[in-house]
């Protein structure tokens, strides 16, 4: 029995996006309702899929019913079900925030938003590496539109760099895929894994080159140093709900690295075995350090948050880079926390910036916000969660990551950089909060005589603040349901780290035999 729900997260945004285009010249309320309905429906579907995947096997959906290695196949395992669910929840909240005014800046915001979801969901679901390229391109083309949404010179300049870098990245991706196809003769990821294990030693150099070429592309998507310099500008200058949604885009890169290098280039993969074991950890640690330096050195909350995205990618990939089951489970626990909290910080920064007309989110003293208690509490919650202080989810996830990697070779480096980066984050966010909320001249200070009354600022309605508050409430929920989430993460890591499950789900039983033989009959 085929589970048709699996293609729901793809077909629904595609269909609703098209419907929204047809309504381009209708009142904006109609586009908002269509967009929000689509996000809500996708969220319901992904929650159902998540619960199915908790106890169930890896599910596949064979498009067009072509026999598996030849046709395109969608694969839903626990990790991809969780990623779909995170994306759907984040998208619904970001869209609810955008519907308070950001979406008026351009006609096609809602359509682009739906196609963006199509691309992201496709990248999580696909089991075919060329199809992954196609979904990447759908995701990127909509993201180009969303980054530029609203216009302005800064966005255009940041957008140019983002677009051109990703065009080069797409070309390189095709070269990598081309080499894999030329040598192994297949594009199905499970089939690639089987044939990689059988590949003769004379092809080792070509296959390893293809793997590292693909890694360069995924590192560009995930924003690993030295391919991360597009991110602070692109995320810092674009509109807030778009930046918040893009918190999941770098995680697409992380997901694909985890998927491809635990499946095609897994430890059982013959000539390609353990390809990234020497590369990923140092690259991720340097990224983490660079992100921390950016966080400490920025003079603007939006840019600080953009560097926090880089830090979170560095942390995730450093832990994943140990390629151990427990560490990957810890990374899976950290991933939803960091995605939701950085997204929340983008929204809080926007709420703050809109009440400081001449300073925005910059660290300029004496520019009071209109609602200091409300925004201060939101900022404090987000900062505590991101900084990794108890009792919120950042603390639990970081403790789990640090304890699971403590026996690996890179443990001192991971501990040092994660904790040092956390300290710098706390200092930077503490300074931001005190400059924005506390560093004010007294209103009746007649002696200095340079104090002028501040212009009245717009007051946020509850509906403006609600989406950011919902994102922040997720953090204590991640702690309260921490036991369940950890159990799920270990089960998901089981499926990720051992490619046999994935291959047998896609290709059928006994097809993973070459992997087991190549690793000496484990």
């Amino acid at each position, binding site marked *: 029995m085929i589970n048709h729900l699996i293609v729901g997260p793809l077909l629904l945004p595609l269909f609703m996006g098209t419907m929204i285009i047809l309504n381009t010249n209708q009142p904006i309320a109609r586009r908002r309702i269509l967009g929000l309905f689509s996000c809500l429906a996708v969220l319901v579907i992904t929650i159902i899929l998540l619960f199915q995947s908790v106890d169930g096997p890896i599910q596949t959906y064979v498009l067009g019913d072509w026999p598996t290695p030849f046709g395109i196949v969608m694969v839903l395992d626990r990790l991809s079900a969780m990623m779909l669910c995170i994306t759907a929840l984040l998208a619904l909240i970001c869209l609810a925030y955008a519907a308070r005014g950001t979406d008026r800046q351009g006609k096609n915001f809602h359509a682009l938003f739906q196609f963006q979801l199509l691309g992201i969901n496709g990248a999580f679901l696909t089991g075919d590496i*060329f199809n992954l390229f*196609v979904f990447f*391109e759908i995701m990127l*083309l909509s993201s*180009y539109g969303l980054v*530029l949404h609203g*216009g*302005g*010179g800064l966005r*255009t*300049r940041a*957008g*140019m*760099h983002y*677009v*051109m870098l990703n*065009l*080069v990245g*797409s*070309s390189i991706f*095709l*070269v990598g*895929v*081309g*080499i894999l*196809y*030329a040598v192994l003769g297949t*594009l199905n990821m499970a089939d690639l894994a089987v044939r990689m294990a059988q590949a003769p030693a004379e092809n080792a150099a070509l296959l390893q080159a293809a793997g590292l070429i693909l890694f360069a592309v995924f590192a560009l998507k995930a924003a690993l140093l030295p391919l991360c310099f597009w991110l602070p500008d692109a995320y810092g200058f674009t509109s807030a709900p778009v930046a918040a949604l893009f918190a999941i885009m770098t995680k697409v890169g992380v997901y694909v690295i985890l998927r491809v290098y635990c499946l095609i280039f897994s430890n059982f993969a013959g000539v390609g075995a353990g390809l990234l074991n020497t590369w990923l950890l140092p690259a991720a640690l340097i990224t983490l350090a660079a992100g921390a330096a950016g966080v400490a050195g920025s003079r603007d909350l939006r840019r600080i948050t953009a560097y926090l995205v880089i830090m979170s990618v560095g942390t995730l990939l450093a832990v994943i880079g140990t390629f151990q089951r427990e560490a990957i489970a810890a990374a899976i626990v950290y991933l939803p926390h960091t995605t939701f909290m950085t997204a929340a910080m983008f929204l809080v920064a926007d709420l703050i910036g809109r009440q400081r007309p001449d300073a925005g989110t910059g660290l300029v003293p004496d520019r009071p916000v209109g609602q200091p208690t409300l925004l201060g509490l939101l900022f404090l919650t987000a900062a505590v969660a991101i900084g990794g202080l108890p009792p919120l989810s950042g603390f639990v996830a970081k403790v789990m990551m640090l304890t699971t990697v403590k026996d690996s070779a890179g443990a001192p480096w991971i501990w040092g950089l994660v904790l040092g980066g956390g300290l710098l984050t706390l200092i930077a966010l503490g300074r931001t909060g005190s400059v924005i909320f506390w560093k004010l001249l007294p209103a009746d200070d007649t002696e200095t005589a340079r104090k002028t009354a501040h212009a009245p600022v717009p007051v946020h309605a509850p509906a403006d603040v609600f989406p950011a508050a919902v994102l922040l409430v997720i953090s204590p929920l991640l702690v309260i349901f921490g036991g369940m989430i950890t159990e799920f993460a270990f089960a998901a890591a089981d499926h990720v780290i051992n490619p046999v499950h994935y291959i047998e789900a896609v290709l059928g039983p006994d097809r993973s035999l070459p992997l087991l033989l190549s690793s000496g009959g484990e």
Partner: protein
Amino acid sequence: MEWLVSACFGVMIACGVYLVLRARTFPVILGLTLMGYAVNLFLFLTGRLHTNLPDIISGSQTQYADPLPQALVLTAIVIGFAMIAFVVVLSLRALGELDTDHVDGHKENPPS
């Protein structure tokens, strides 16, 4: 023939990389186009170089042309074409908004 084709591919990629590293948007777009062409050629070659092979499987022939690279290259061409069109429009908009065609938005040096 392998030498000739791979040399072509290398020269195209080298020219593309050189142009992409220029500071003005027009050469950069030309470079991206050239790299796109080179990659399409490369994808085409993943089916290996053959001559006089049938493109349809028949009982009498043991060898036939690989049909998959043709499908892949068609997809890549369509996507690449759309992307280049987008980046051309974006560059025109950047020229209008930033008043310069420098990729970093730098203004010309003032005449001394």
